[in-house]
């Protein structure tokens, strides 16, 4: 079904929060999912996959244990949302010529939007690569090289982020996205957890605006 990017962002934010991510990470997950969708990548499907994998598990288990050396998570597999956010936070290191290396990254494509953010901050393109996949982005456009299976991989053993990168055959974003019904339903189910069940007391306490304007 064709969705607007705003719909994708709104749903992704609620879903990521519903799966247990902190609000700040949920916001970034949503922007990233939107960004990937705008380049015709299945951002919603990837997000649904990652949220299902790490559903309500402690974020610290899938976070880089330290930002020194090659980044590894205590649980052995690392969240591309958490590691991606940390990579964007450390953008200045890449400007200084330092590569950021990550190990065992789940759904690595979800980390690529953070490279877009880093590129905007640095004012120069950033590359992200793993076996069979090579991305470069300046934040506005995205170049992807590799076969689709590798690009959409659910695990990358080793991921390298670096700047500056060379933009080869950059692709401009499109403004609509096709989303699989199943992945959308998965996100909706996560999102539902963020809604408070209505109670009789909340109705009595008048939580809503109670618009009744039949004049």
């Amino acid at each position: 079904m064709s969705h607007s990017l705003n719909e994708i962002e709104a749903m992704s934010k609620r879903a990521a929060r519903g799966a247990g991510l902190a609000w700040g990470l949920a916001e970034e997950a949503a922007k990233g999912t939107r960004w990937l969708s705008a380049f015709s990548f299945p951002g919603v499907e990837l997000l649904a996959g990652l949220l299902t994998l790490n559903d309500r598990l402690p974020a610290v288990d899938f976070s880089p244990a330290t930002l020194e050396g090659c980044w590894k998570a205590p649980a052995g597999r690392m969240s591309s949302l958490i590691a991606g956010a940390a990579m964007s936070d450390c953008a200045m290191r890449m400007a200084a010529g330092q590569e950021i290396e990550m190990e065992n990254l789940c759904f690595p494509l979800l980390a690529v939007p953070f490279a877009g953010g880093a590129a905007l901050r640095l004012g120069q393109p950033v590359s992200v690569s793993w076996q069979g996949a090579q991305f470069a982005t300046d934040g506005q456009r995205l170049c992807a090289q590799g076969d689709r299976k590798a690009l959409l991989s659910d695990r990358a053993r080793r991921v390298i982020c670096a700047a500056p990168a060379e933009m080869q055959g950059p692709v401009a974003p499109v403004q609509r996205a096709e989303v699989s019904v199943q992945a959308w339903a998965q996100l909706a189910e996560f999102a539902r957890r963020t809604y408070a069940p209505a109670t009789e007391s909340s109705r009595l306490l008048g939580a809503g605006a109670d618009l009744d304007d039949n004049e």
Partner: protein
Amino acid sequence: MSDVQDTRELPALRDPSIVMRLSRLGCFHQSRLSFMRILTRRMKRENWRFDRPVIDIDAAGIGHAVYSAHGPDHSYSLVAFAHDLPAEQRSDRVIAEAWDCTFTLFDGIPTAEDITRLAQNVPLQEAGRVTGAELSVSRANRSVRLWEHMVSSLAAGQQPDADQIEAVGYLMRTTAVYGSGKLGAADREMIAERAEFTAPFQVEMLSVYLTRAFVRDLVQHMANARADGAGKTAAQLGPALARSLGIGNSTGLGMAPFLLNHPVLFSNWVSAREQALQRVRSLAVARPAEIACFQDLFARNRLSVVNWRSEHGAQREKLTALTGDVALIAKRLADRGLAQPYPWDGLYRWSTKVLSVEGQEWLVSLMLEPYGDLVDDLAGELSADNTATFRIAGAMTVARLREVLQQIYGWALDTDWKLPANTARAWYVSEEKLEPRLGQRFEEPIEQYEQPLAPGRDASQLFAALAHWPGETPIAEFLLRHPEHRHSVRRAQIANRAPYAEIRDNTISDTVLPIDMLRCKLAFFGAMHFDPRSDRWVRICMYGNAPYPEELSARDGDFWVYPEQQEG
């Protein structure tokens, strides 16, 4: 201007700690930079053409119509569906399932196939889907009392009663106007590059503008049909009475978090108005034509205050104060005029000592009126591209972040958040309504569903969490351990660059008035005569007294917001 000797310092922009208090934001008024006026000025300046290619509505009021607006580069069409809604189904709640009329703003001129597709979806609103060819989706309900009065009067060959029209102000009120990708419509990014849509909410404002013309025509159509049935001829609604009608709007809690959720955009709105004020205050001399313009609009706006009614206690108090303020301004203008050096700065400084906040902000907006050439370009700065500000600058040190927090959230760091009264409310989204609500934190099981809409409290928690971290540590290291603070770190960094991004008040206290946030947003839309119907929703009227599409070329496209003075 250089011949005036004055050594005073040029006025600075007003401090965010003064401007961004809820009590002041809740006193904002429409101005030259309001979104409705930006639209009508542009349409007049560019000689937009309007037509009504389709009107297919039966005697029972069921059918559809198309109203098109043609700008220099693009055409847009309001596709309106009129229904026959039983009274018991008429509800303004977001969860309503039927409305008197439903609408979409179509990008271009719709084909018959488009209309067929839209007819299957637009009347369903949230339960339907639209496409990237649609720019907005909206719905409206009748004011039952005024609608019947107008139809029966016109059908009987008489003009409706002006007092009854004035008492309600509108024939239909919108209960939601969705843009920016909602329900599958086009994302703002798809159209933001078009000149007519660079300012915020222009799609929504255009949709409501065309809706008003449709509603006027529909009531005439219904009166004609009723008269036909009785073998009579209906009266044609007089143009002045028609013009006094606006489109009502009921705005509830769903809109309140908008200003918190769009900090960069909100900062741009406030900043544009503050820069405009600064530019006007910096003028050494007011020219006679400018003084005359101000005096004229002062008198007209004074009439508008007289016509502003509300039953809400807080608004009544504000209105009483405003009425007194307007008299004080009139006296000062009579006593001192505006011929002295830096007249606007003098007037503004005087107002801060003498007038209520409602009166101060009323005056601020009015002072901008003579200076379109000086301030209207600021309309180009109202929109926001969040892309660059969204990413956290992880190299910022803990020490620097502490400074930023102290500067922006000083009030919050001084607040005792352990006091139940200071966290008495919580914003959440209910499963039943799927819209933001404001609950009682200590009386309802809602805290685990709380939305991040209490930036002061959250910044205070962030500040406490930073207390034992070395000052030179990059914030990236802190956030690796504390992802729960990413949201607040981002807000602080945004507010550090966008000075008016953050409301400097407690949004979860037992005394918070959501109507302050609603009014502020509606004032930027260009609404007047805010009428809070509780602490949680506001009724307004849009485009009252505005020229209709066919009148725009011959009438004032800008100052229509101010009632014309009666002759004699």
